[in-house]
């Protein structure tokens, strides 16, 4: 029974002219053969499925061919046939991935002095050469340095960076490029036609894009689709189902619904797509790619060639791009990006996917970055108007306070607080996965407790609940932790004006206690704490605090385990009471 040979093996190129998309290499090699510029060692590198091994084999034949035509092997003479059949004595192929030791290389090298039997040269093809061990590389290097006149080495690798530099400099290096979508589509068309199959242009485009530059992958995918054996032309739908990716019209419908703010439609479409067998992760990635193209075409409708889409598809995408504002698109990309990251760690991918899309609809308007930039700008303008005297700074604080208080929340319940942005976001996204394990022993470490204590006191610290230590400085009105925490973003903004790095260090910190004119800052990361403790930086922080709160404040920096005098014990007792003594284990 005749065995079926995979398409990529049936269609392995047999001449240089048949190698797709590597004109710079095939032309050089053919000319080298014609003009006698053959060198002793070649290094072929490039991603998988771009023609390295095929070209190496063609070169081996062309070198030894009895009747070469214009540098091409004839594939008909005795030598070519023997090499094609894989039983030539002059062409040795070695897979370095499975023969990576020094012994194998020694074995090979020992036989090199023996001249060729049938052809003019002995050709050694060493595939995946980066897998060789260090010793094996060195053994090979010695031979590459002084090769006998009859030997030609062809090394092939996907990772030239792992090849020793000394080897690299002895080889003529050729870099195989990933194939363009167009080149792959052309070849696929040819193969399909030869197999008597018709493939829709849309299907072809989808296939070629999914192959990501590797022709072998593309042919394998085509094989897979042909194996389903349906009659009639292959449609984009079939391809999408086989590959488990979303079709362009699905993506267009989804983004269309997002553009019009049709939440129900979005959820409906997601449901439909998932029902057709697309993984949520895949759908999100496809959407992300699609959104990138939307943004690109929004800015430059003529950039269609970069997307790898067919012209009419580019038209569709560009038309939809007009419905979006480009800030909104950027926002969508950001959300999809974050959703993708969260999705990887979640066991509820569908929820994340839906939440990501819903989040985009629920919270329209400028992004957080945009807002913080505007705020920073306004502050800069204010500062310029008011001048730097401390007395006025205090007025400014007072004047701004009410406005600060009823600042409209950007996104209800989530993104209002810049300082806690990270926390809030991850909380929002990871919520489903992070349910509180009821009944189990909850491990609470002291840091969390202190945090809780700080927040607790902040909550309680109304004007009337001034506890002992907070009355120590009678001169100025008491500053409360709650106020400091609320206005922490302002401090960050002030710090940013000093230097961006200072802000970055401060971001890691959280005010946990205020006592008189001393502010305790808990900084978790050692590095950031170290930086903040440097006198220069400390001064700048204090300056920023003074500017915001209109009074000098001393900063005490702790590692997140401060001992604020007062109610730590209280909180602990309350927690123990709340959970029950057997459920709480204290870890320091």
């Amino acid at each position: 029974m005749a065995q079926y040979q995979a398409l990529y093996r049936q269609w392995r190129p047999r001449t240089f002219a048949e190698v797709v998309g590597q004109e710079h290499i095939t032309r050089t090699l053919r000319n080298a053969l014609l003009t006698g510029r053959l060198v002793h060692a070649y290094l072929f590198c490039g991603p998988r499925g771009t023609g390295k091994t095929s070209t190496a084999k063609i070169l081996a034949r062309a070198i030894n061919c009895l009747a070469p035509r214009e540098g091409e092997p004839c594939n008909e003479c005795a030598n070519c046939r023997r090499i094609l059949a894989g039983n030539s004595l002059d062409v040795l192929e070695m897979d370095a991935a499975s023969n990576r030791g020094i012994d194998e290389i020694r074995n090979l090298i020992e036989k090199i002095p023996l001249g060729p039997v049938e052809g003019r040269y002995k050709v050694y093809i060493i595939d995946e050469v980066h897998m060789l061990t260090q010793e094996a590389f060195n053994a090979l290097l010695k031979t590459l340095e002084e090769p006998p006149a009859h030997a030609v080495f062809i090394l092939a690798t996907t990772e030239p960076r792992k090849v020793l530099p000394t080897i690299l400099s002895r080889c003529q290096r050729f870099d195989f490029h990933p194939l363009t979508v167009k080149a792959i589509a052309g070849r696929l068309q040819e193969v399909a036609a030869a197999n008597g199959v018709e493939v829709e242009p849309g299907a072809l485009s989808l296939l070629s894009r999914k192959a990501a530059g590797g022709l072998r992958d593309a042919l394998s995918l085509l094989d897979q689709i042909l194996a389903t054996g349906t009659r009639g032309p292959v449609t984009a739908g079939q391809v999408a189902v086989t590959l488990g990716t979303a079709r362009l019209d699905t993506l267009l419908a989804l983004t269309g619904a997002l553009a019009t703010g049709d939440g129900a439609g979005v959820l409906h479409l997601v449901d439909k797509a998932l029902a057709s067998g697309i993984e949520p992760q895949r759908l999100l990635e496809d959407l992300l790619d699609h959104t990138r193209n939307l943004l690109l075409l929004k800015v430059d409708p003529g950039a269609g060639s970069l997307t790898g889409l067919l012209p009419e598809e580019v038209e569709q995408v560009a038309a939809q791009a007009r419905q979006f504002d480009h800030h909104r698109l950027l926002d969508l990309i950001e959300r999809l990006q974050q959703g993708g990251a969260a999705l990887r760690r979640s066991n509820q991918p569908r929820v994340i996917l839906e939440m990501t899309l819903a989040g985009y609809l629920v919270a329209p308007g400028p992004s957080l970055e945009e807002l913080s930039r505007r705020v920073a700008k306004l502050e800069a303008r204010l500062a310029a108007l008011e001048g730097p005297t401390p007395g006025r700074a205090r007025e400014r604080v007072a004047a701004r306070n009410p406005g600060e208080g009823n600042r409209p929340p950007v996104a209800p319940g989530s993104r209002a607080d810049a300082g806690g942005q990270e926390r809030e976001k991850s909380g929002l996204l990871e919520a489903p996965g992070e349910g509180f394990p009821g009944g189990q022993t909850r491990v609470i470490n002291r840091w969390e407790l202190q945090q809780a204590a700080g927040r607790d006191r902040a909550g309680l610290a109304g004007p009337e609940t001034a506890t002992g230590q907070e009355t120590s400085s009678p001169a100025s009105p008491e500053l409360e932790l709650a106020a400091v925490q609320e206005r922490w973003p302002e401090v960050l903004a002030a710090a940013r004006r000093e230097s961006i790095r200072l802000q970055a260090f401060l971001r890691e910190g959280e005010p946990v206690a205020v006592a008189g004119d001393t502010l305790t800052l808990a900084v978790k990361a050692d590095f950031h704490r170290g930086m903040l403790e440097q006198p220069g930086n400390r001064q700048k922080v204090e300056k920023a605090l003074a500017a915001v709160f209109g009074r000098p404040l001393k900063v005490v920096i702790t590692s997140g385990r401060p001992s604020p005098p007062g109610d730590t014990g209280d909180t602990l007792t309350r927690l123990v009471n709340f959970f029950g003594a057997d459920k709480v284990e204290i870890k320091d």
Partner: protein
Amino acid sequence: MDWQELVEEVEQGCIAPVYLFYGSEGYLQERALKTLKKKLIPPETGDFDYQELDGRELTGAEVIMLAATLPAMAERRLMVIKSPAAELWQDKDFLEYLTKPEPATCLVLVVNGSIDKRLKAVKEISSTGRVVECSPLQGEDLAAWLTKEARQEGYNLPPAAAQVLARAAGGDLRQARNELGKAMAYTGKPGTITPDIVQALAPEIEAENTIFQLVDALGNKKPELAIGFLRQLLERGEAPLGIVAMLARQLRLIYRAHLAGNNRNLAAKLGLKPFVARKVAAQARNFSLRAAGQALEELLKVDTALKTGQGEAGPLLEQAIWTIIARGEH
């Protein structure tokens, strides 16, 4: 004398009985040896009269004995001693041999690295034979050498193309020669090798240029161009972290160019070649100090995100490009 003079001399048939090759460019030493061998040893006599020895374990007496051996078939014996031992230079018998070397032997001492020219032996060699320097060629010299090499084979390599080639090899002569061989093969029949050909064949150079254009596009606030270049790079299989690193390098240079102010010696200050420094200075006009800093910050974000598995390289980098350009607008 340098090795080029040597080659000319040897080609004219003037051969000294003793040579000392020194310098760190092994390729030039190899080439010089090859020229000598071609001249002295006819191919049909094979390796009868050619001897290559590792000098680390040879004493002066042994060297002299070997050097006194008469040639079998060729007119002269060629004897190469690679990395001779330090004691050899002090050896009395050897010094004496150097004053009256055997005329039927061509003794070549090859030292990889520098030599002490005050040594008596070295002085002797320079009077009875030749001391040849083989140090690496750099910048313009390398380009000039490549042009000459090409001309010898009938190809025309204009200075622009030669410079690209020299850069592609990163100062490594052997690699430069390899790249030249590739470019000549691509051109086919003797003709002119254009910079485009060199670029198409030398991947690093192409990537470097594209990065440069990408930074230009960022500076000129042309997102569509920047994204185009980025996709080109990714499509060609550049490593994403490599792209981030190269972008960051360029922006850091711009940042530093601003810090250096209107300094005439920008090249020296940044430790760059003059033409690279000029390009950096030109790009710096499109970035304020602040903008360059912010762009670097964005790249740091991408770097962190990539290394912590927050997403794919393409979207992350594109997002960074959009953010950098959007920030610049406000």
